């Protein structure tokens, strides 16, 4: 099992990459809205992603179950 510091050091860059991909995807959506002059008819997937990030941004997760919370959250999107 990894120590707390080793856990951060091992996975930070991959997590950074994944967050950048999410940021770029949201930018891509905004650029598409600008080009088309209209939002998507159904923005629920974007809203779901933003809500998921709010869950992640909560400082305390005593059960260390962020992934489970996100899976339950994303299950609302069909």
């Amino acid at each position, binding site marked *: 099992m990894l120590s707390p510091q080793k856990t951060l050091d091992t996975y930070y*860059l991959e997590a950074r*990459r994944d967050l950048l991909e999410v940021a*770029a*995807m949201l930018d891509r959506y905004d650029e598409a809205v600008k080009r088309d002059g209209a939002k998507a008819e159904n923005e629920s997937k974007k809203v779901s992603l933003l809500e998921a990030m709010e869950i992640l941004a909560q400082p305390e997760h005593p059960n260390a179950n962020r992934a489970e919370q996100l899976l339950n959250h994303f299950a609302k999107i069909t």
Partner: protein
Amino acid sequence: MQIIQPHYHAIARTAQDYERMAMSGVVAVCEPAFWAGFDRRHPETFIDYFAQISEFEPTRAAEFGIRHYCWVAVNPKEAENKELTNEVLRQMPEFLGKPTCLGVGETGLHKSTPNEIESLQAHVEMAMKHDQLVLIHTPHLSDKAHGTKTVLEVLAGMDVNPDKIWIDHVEEQTIEPVLDAGYWAGMTLYPVTKCSPRRAVDILEKYPRERLLVNSSADWGPSDPFTLQESIVEFRRRGHSLQAAVEIYHNNPCRFLGQNPKWDIKPITISEE
């Protein structure tokens, strides 16, 4: 589709890369001098390395029908050794005369120290004196924005031709000042640490493409030369034409590198899609 790999460290890769690249349409690779993973102590080590990439590596690529070109420089990470840097610089003109050497690179900055800046200036001066192209590495991760700004400041204080300078590893936070200053900008696609194939296509859709180059990661670390093909698939998946892809992934490298007469691969036009 015919593809150019503008930034590829072949000596760190196996022949299987060449074979697969050939199967996927790669017609030429360009190998800048880079860091070996440790700081070299002897100028002779560089000289042998330059001989390897300018003499031997083209024969290995040719086995698979791929043209191989190179660049020579002292890597920024090794610029702290001034004696070594100066001696390698003294011997570099011999290699600039090799038939497949396209210019001076990759020089640039790593931690943006005074010695790195001095080395960058010396490399650029040599390139301009010998009418060579220049490939400039910009730092990684948290050093990137500051390092890129410093590169631009160094160049602004020198008598350079921006047409002949390619500033590499740009990302969203650094591309604008590089293009605004008139330089060529390169995006390097890495699995984790630099630009990704999708983000590169976002940048291609956002900025004028005339001075943009896309290159894959291909070195001894976690890297994947086929990130370049990934970005081509992503570009095409978004509805861009085959010719638009050819302009970026084949013709733009030809236009930049073709400023050196040793590069004889011409831009191509797809007559019918």
